[in-house]
């Protein structure tokens, strides 16, 4: 009886702590979301702004029009989708070569791939911006897409999972006259679906969320991504329009939060692939 009470009190304590911490972590999202769902002076009437009353879509609607957000969302969606497909294809091909084929200098070529993982984008953007310029790719979709189409991380990941596929499977297929590409497409890739899912999810999120590279290659409305568009809703000197940015934030973050909820398992699997047991 007494131990039951102690256990109950402990459980209550643990839940209270969890709820309190969760409230702190969520507070920024909650406050901005509610502010976006209010209009006019209501948005700045703190702390009443934190109560879910007098909700309206006016602010989000104004932000949508003022920031041309529909177009920017489509730009982000298009660029992220093409990059994701491209990265999966290039990673599958190179991963296959490293896992199933034997060729001269294989170890050295693989080392070159791995070493590029150490080069951060922040270092290469100086020159890449000039390269894109010389190709005439500033303010184009090519400029946003092509430099991201290969991912060393993707090649590495695909190679890892392909190495688990028994070599006998490939040898048997070869005896039946199945070529490399067909084996890749019909056997190896389908066997690696979870890894490819994680890779695709990561690439999509990374491209959708990218900031530095897009900010250096595009500055027109026709190609700007949603991340860049948010900045233009920021009007620090005009308080009457200040709330527009919260509307934009909701529009930009919503698709990603939906993806997070739907694909939580794949996301965790992908993130932890490199961390646990290094």
């Amino acid at each position: 009886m007494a131990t039951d009470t102690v256990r109950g009190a402990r459980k209550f304590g643990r839940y209270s702590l969890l709820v309190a911490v969760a409230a702190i972590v969520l507070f920024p999202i909650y406050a901005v979301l509610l502010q976006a769902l209010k209009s006019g002076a209501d948005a700045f009437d703190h702390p009443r702004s934190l109560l879910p009353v007098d909700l309206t879509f006016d602010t989000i609607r104004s932000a949508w029009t003022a920031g041309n957000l529909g177009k920017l969302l489509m730009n982000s969606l298009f660029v992220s989708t093409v990059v994701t497909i491209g990265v999966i294809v290039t990673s599958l091909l190179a991963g296959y070569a490293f896992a199933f084929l034997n060729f001269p200098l294989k170890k050295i070529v693989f080392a070159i791939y791995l070493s590029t993982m150490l080069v951060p984008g922040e270092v290469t953007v100086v020159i890449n911006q000039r390269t894109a310029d010389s190709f005439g790719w500033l303010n184009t979709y090519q400029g946003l897409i092509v430099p991201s189409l290969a991912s060393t991380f993707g090649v590495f990941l695909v190679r890892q999972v392909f190495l688990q596929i028994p070599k006998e499977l490939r040898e048997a297929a070869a005896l039946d006259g199945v070529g490399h590409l067909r084996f890749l497409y019909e056997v190896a890739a389908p066997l690696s679906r979870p890894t490819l899912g994680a890779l695709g999810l990561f690439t999509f999120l990374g491209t959708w969320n990218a900031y530095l590279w897009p900010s250096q290659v595009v500055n027109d409305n026709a190609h700007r991504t949603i991340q860049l568009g948010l900045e233009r809703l920021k009007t620090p000197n005009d308080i009457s329009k200040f709330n527009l940015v919260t509307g934009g934030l909701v529009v930009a973050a919503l698709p990603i939060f939906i993806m997070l909820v739907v694909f939580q398992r794949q996301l965790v699997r992908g993130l932890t692939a490199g961390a646990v047991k290094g």
Partner: protein
Amino acid sequence: MKRKLRDLPPALLMLVPSLGLLAVWTIYPLVRAVDYGHKACDISVRNCRDVGWDRYWTVFQSKEFQDALLVSLKLALMTVPVGLVLGIGLAVLADKQLKGIGIFRTVFSSTVATSVAVASLVWFVLLQPQVGVLADLLSGWIPKLKNPGLLNDSSTALPAVALSSIWASLGFTFIIIMAGLQSVPRDLYESAFVDGAGSFRRFTNVTLPMLTPSILFVTVVLTTRALQAYGEIALLTGGGPQDTKATTTIPYLIYGNNSLVHNDIGIKSASAVLLFLLCLTFAAVQFRGFGKRVHYGN
């Protein structure tokens, strides 16, 4: 040997797409930046002359670079230890078999998908001095929230940027540490319990050693993120407040709109190469320093 040569044509075909892209967009710009780093060019970059490799040393020693280096290091120092401790705290809190724990885990991971632009602007809104909710609610305790606003004061701007970064990285840290915790074999806890270890001893003697691979990984990633901070600076402070350079990190020095070296490809390249070396050094030191203490299980 025959087999090797037979596989060569298909291997080449399969490697060409990614190898070509990496050559043009990763290897070439690195080599080119190293080269430009010792050159002085006019704005068109058509006329360049060699100014010698000691240019790197000159750039490194320049006041602009030293100031930016200090800001970047301070940002790393503010974000990495706090972010790590908070992440471990959240993970330990959520590592219990309780009803509904899945909801809390989702909440704690929720910031993993927020972009640097979204996270920065969220905090920009919260911290706005006239109409921001934090300024209104907490200025009794922290008067600077209202006047002049954390982002407008040169002593609080960088901590405010750090706050935004820590929050944005919390979901990632939580997920990695949580996965590390769940891979700790339960019987280790049981034997420690049987040996009479209290919950604190079990944490320091079982949990932490088993978590070292995850902690190392998170430390390296968070440090790299801090050293590469650009978007949060561009969106929150523009390297300022005003022209104080109090938040001008190395990437912002290179890419920022109002940066001093905006049009000088030579200095920009030299700074980028120095940034690369800095990131490499940090990662190497962290791997070595941790190396002996990392416990990878079996």
